[in-house]
């Protein structure tokens, strides 16, 4: 293999590790129901599998900022990859929820070091800072969008442990690729205040992405009962649209691309909030808008936050911290809203279900066992999951009885409709965050930035 080809392979391998580290923010979402039942925990407990990674990543990124200029970036990247590898192996073999959360923290610390150091490493491997930054930005955008779908496929095909087991060889391959590379950053404080608007916009956009990357997944899998692989199929539209928008971005000025991206992301999230029916088709169209918005705004804002030059690594570390802080803050903001609305939604679901049963035209001899079966279904359902309301109807012969089938579908529909509406305020909050990102983008122009 000639030197040029070897460098290209190394670049690809390191870019894959960068994409996985970005994807890890949301990769576990489709596995949450599995984790929930495996560890018999609470919703808050299982949510820490996601929050811990993002929180530690953001914290470590900010802790690195003052010292990154004095560090050997090659060593930092390799140390990050070793930690990320160890965290992935540990997470894949976790025996309890606390152990999984500890290993997710190790992964987060490794990811912060890897993402900060990889900018300089990719620049060295790609031949220039401009090309290295382009690879880093593309891997980050595509990885973040791909996360939930990838996690869903791995969970359905194998097990939740496969998500982490898959990451370990990626980290190991990148470690081998990085082993022979020596890069030294030029000590510099970076772009300073002039990068702030782009970083604030990125923090708000990544906060908004909680709606597309987390809430939509919970809606599809928990409320609508889709399998992880079916959920992943719907979510695939996000990376596909983001990739398509990457091409469209070349036809637009940086400012137009950022503004259009924020507006489309806000519109997509508003469309998710305003769902008028349980319809995977409408979710696909709304997520396509979110993915397009992400593909237009994130790359251009990242290039504004991290411009090639002396402060490349410093600025890269700041922007990694900013976007993960946005993500964590949005999770903290959205979780109580969703939790409270789901309680109210469950009450509406019970009322809607009672209405269907009271209005039903079913003989009493069938209605009584159905009502008793529904009571048992509620009692048997694991915490945090929607009971199987169809089973008591099926047991009474709904497959061959059109009247019974109609009542069954109406009841299941009433419950799903009420739960779907529960996501409305949380998704609207995410849409608001995307709209707020327009403020720093528009202000940046006045400062001669865009």
């Amino acid at each position, binding site marked *: 293999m000639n030197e040029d080809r070897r460098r290209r392979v190394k670049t690809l391998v390191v870019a894959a590790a960068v994409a996985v580290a970005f994807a890890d923010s949301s990769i576990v979402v489709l596995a949450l129901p599995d984790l929930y039942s495996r560890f018999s925990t609470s919703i808050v407990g299982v949510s820490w599998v996601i929050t811990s990674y993002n929180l530690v990543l953001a914290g470590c990124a900010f802790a690195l900022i003052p010292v990154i200029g004095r560090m050997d970036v090659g060593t930092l990247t390799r140390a990050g990859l070793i930690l990320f590898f160890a965290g992935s192996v540990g997470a894949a073999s976790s025996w309890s929820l606390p152990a999984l959360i500890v290993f997710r923290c190790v992964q987060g610390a490794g990811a912060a070091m890897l993402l900060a150091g990889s900018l300089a490493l990719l620049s060295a491997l790609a031949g220039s800072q401009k090309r290295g930054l382009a690879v880093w930005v593309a891997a980050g955008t595509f990885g973040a969008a791909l996360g939930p779908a990838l996690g869903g496929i791995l969970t359905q095909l194998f097990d939740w442990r496969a998500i982490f087991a898959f990451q370990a060889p990626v980290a190991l391959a990148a470690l081998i690729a990085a082993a022979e590379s020596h890069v030294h950053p030029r000590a510099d404080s970076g772009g300073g205040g002039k990068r702030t608007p782009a970083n604030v916009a990125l923090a708000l956009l990544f906060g908004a992405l909680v709606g597309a990357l987390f809430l939509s997944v919970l809606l599809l899998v928990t409320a609508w009962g889709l399998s992880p692989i079916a959920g992943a199929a719907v979510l695939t539209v996000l990376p596909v649209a983001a990739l398509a928008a990457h091409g469209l971005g070349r*036809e637009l000025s940086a400012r137009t691309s950022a503004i259009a991206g924020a507006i489309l992301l806000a519109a997509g999230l508003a469309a998710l909030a305003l769902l008028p029916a349980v319809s995977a088709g*409408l979710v696909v169209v709304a997520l396509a808008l979110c993915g397009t918005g992400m593909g237009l705004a994130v790359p251009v804002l990242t290039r504004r936050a991290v411009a090639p030059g002396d402060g490349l690594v410093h600025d890269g570390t700041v922007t990694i911290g900013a976007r993960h802080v946005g993500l964590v803050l949005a999770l903290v903001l959205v979780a109580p809203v969703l939790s409270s609305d789901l309680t109210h939604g469950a*009450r509406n679901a*019970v*009322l809607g279900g*009672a209405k269907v049963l*009271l209005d039903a*035209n079913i003989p009493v001899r069938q209605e009584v066992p159905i009502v008793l079966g529904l009571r048992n279904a509620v009692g048997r359902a694991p915490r945090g999951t929607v009971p199987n309301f169809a089973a008591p109807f099926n047991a009474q012969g709904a497959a061959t009885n059109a009247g019974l089938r109609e009542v069954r579908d109406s009841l299941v529909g009433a419950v799903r409709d*009420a739960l779907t509406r529960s996501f409305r305020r949380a998704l609207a909050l995410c849409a608001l965050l995307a709209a707020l990102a327009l403020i720093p983008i528009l202000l940046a122009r006045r400062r001669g930035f865009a």
Partner: protein
Amino acid sequence: MTTRTGRLALALLGGAAVALIALELALGAGSFGQPKLADPCTASAGRSGGGLDGTVQRFARAALDGAACQLHTTREELVLSFVPGAGTAKVRWSRQTIDRALRAGLQRAAHELAGSGIAGNVLGFGLSQLVAPSVESLLGQAK
């Protein structure tokens, strides 16, 4: 610089976003997911199959509507208030109030059934006598 192709693509995407949200609002996004509970004071007992089974169900529904109307609630809230762990309000009325409301409901149901002739009159009276002890027992358990 934004090219002509870029402007065209953005116009299409913007139009798609506006069309999607307009379509969702037109399809009833505003009231989606909220149970449409009928006013028990004006609701009819609704359709049911024929025979004694259908008559009993219509009678029970009319009785529930009558009681819910007296208590200024819906029949769904009233039924669920007796179900432990249903997630809705527990019994929040005094025994006497519920007693009065259920008797009024049974009266209304019997009155509605009486509209269908002498047979309905007799059936209405019979059902009232049959249902009342069950209601008494239900109230006893709920307390």
